[in-house]
């Protein structure tokens, strides 16, 4: 673990997201030790990117927006209120930046954003006799992570946003609602839908996706596209 060795030599100690260190770091950045800012956001940089990517679905845009969001956080660090978690605040800035970028992109091609309203009807999960567990260990494999990412990218925007914040960023229901500017009831409705759709998309047996032989895209039975 070469990273660890280097970390030991660091005089300031490596910040790893401990909330108490974080409060102190924020204070020091506010007091003018700007160079500590990178330490402050480093534990969250992957989350910032994932959030931007979930909304934009494009690597280059997501990276640019992630950078913009981080710079914005630096610029407004004095506005951060300690009652929120720093990570949540950072994610919220990222959501706003990403949405702005998306709006701009849509405006350029003269196309309104078609965010569909929540589907009121109940969703009927597909009927499988059994669920064959996809073990976490399979995440070591690139193609499995790829398949999961593809399934997620296939969800509608409103479902994807909620799912990413709640289940990947692990924000609470309340935090998710605040970050997206929607009600907690909407968070719950969309989350249910997102989880069930993903479950149906990932169901084993879809062309033997998890057996490793199958290299194609996720496939669906006719008429079962859940979105």
């Amino acid at each position: 673990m070469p990273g660890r060795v280097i970390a030991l030599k660091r005089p300031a100690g490596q910040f790893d997201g401990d909330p108490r260190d974080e409060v102190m770091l924020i204070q020091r950045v506010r007091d003018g030790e700007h160079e500590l800012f990178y330490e402050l956001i480093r534990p969250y940089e992957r989350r910032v990117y994932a959030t931007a990517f979930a909304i934009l679905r494009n690597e280059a845009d997501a990276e640019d927006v992630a950078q913009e969001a981080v710079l914005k956080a630096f610029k407004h660090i004095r506005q951060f209120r300690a009652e929120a978690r720093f990570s949540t605040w950072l994610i919220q800035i990222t959501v706003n930046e990403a949405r702005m970028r998306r709006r701009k992109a849509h405006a350029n091609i003269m196309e309104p954003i078609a965010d569909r309203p929540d589907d009121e009807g109940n969703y009927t999960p597909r009927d499988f006799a059994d669920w064959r567990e996809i073990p976490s260990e399979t995440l070591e494999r690139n193609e499995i992570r790829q398949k999961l990412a593809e399934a997620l990218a296939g969800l509608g925007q409103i479902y994807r946003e909620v799912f990413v914040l709640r289940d990947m960023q692990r924000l609470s229901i309340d935090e998710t609602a605040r970050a997206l500017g929607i009600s907690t009831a909407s968070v719950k409705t969309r989350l249910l839908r997102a989880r069930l759709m993903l479950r149906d998309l990932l169901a084993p047996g879809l062309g033997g996706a998890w057996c490793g032989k199958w290299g194609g895209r996720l496939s669906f039975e006719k008429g079962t596209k859940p979105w």
Partner: protein
Amino acid sequence: MVVNCEEVWREVSNYLDGEVHPGLRLAIEAHVRDCQRCTAVLDGTRNVIQLYGDERMLEVPLGFGQRLHRRIEQNLPSSIPPSRRTFLGWMVAAAAAVLVVGSLELVRASSARRPEQRSELARRGSGVPPNMMVVVTEDGKLFHRAGCPFIHERNRPRTITASEASREGYTPCIRCMGKYLADA
């Protein structure tokens, strides 16, 4: 209280989040025990949450951290007192070294969990009271509070203390142990 399949599907997400009242929770569990279809719905949904909640799903493009760091540096106001400059220079060099090592690791990639994650998990475990009774399962890797919907009943759950669980290599479930974890 009795619930049917449709009601289970409507509540499965809330159930897994611990957002249903105890009466409904028991009714859902009673229904699922006897309903194969709902068992498959519950298992699959739980599986989805576990997979996507894994840190390994948060991937960034190669060199992302470096480019971000550079962008920040370019945009920091130069208000650093001269006495700190040497220290800053050192910090930047060290951070860059970490980043280089980090990206090498990414290239080697895919085989093992990155070390930072392991340390993160270990750190997270430290907030749980050591004498707290927790539930572990045979083929699981996590320890849970009793009643956590992420415990797989069929894998013969066993109750031990949190410190024993840690010694045996289990790490806390983020869903039910959330309040003890120094989660970011």
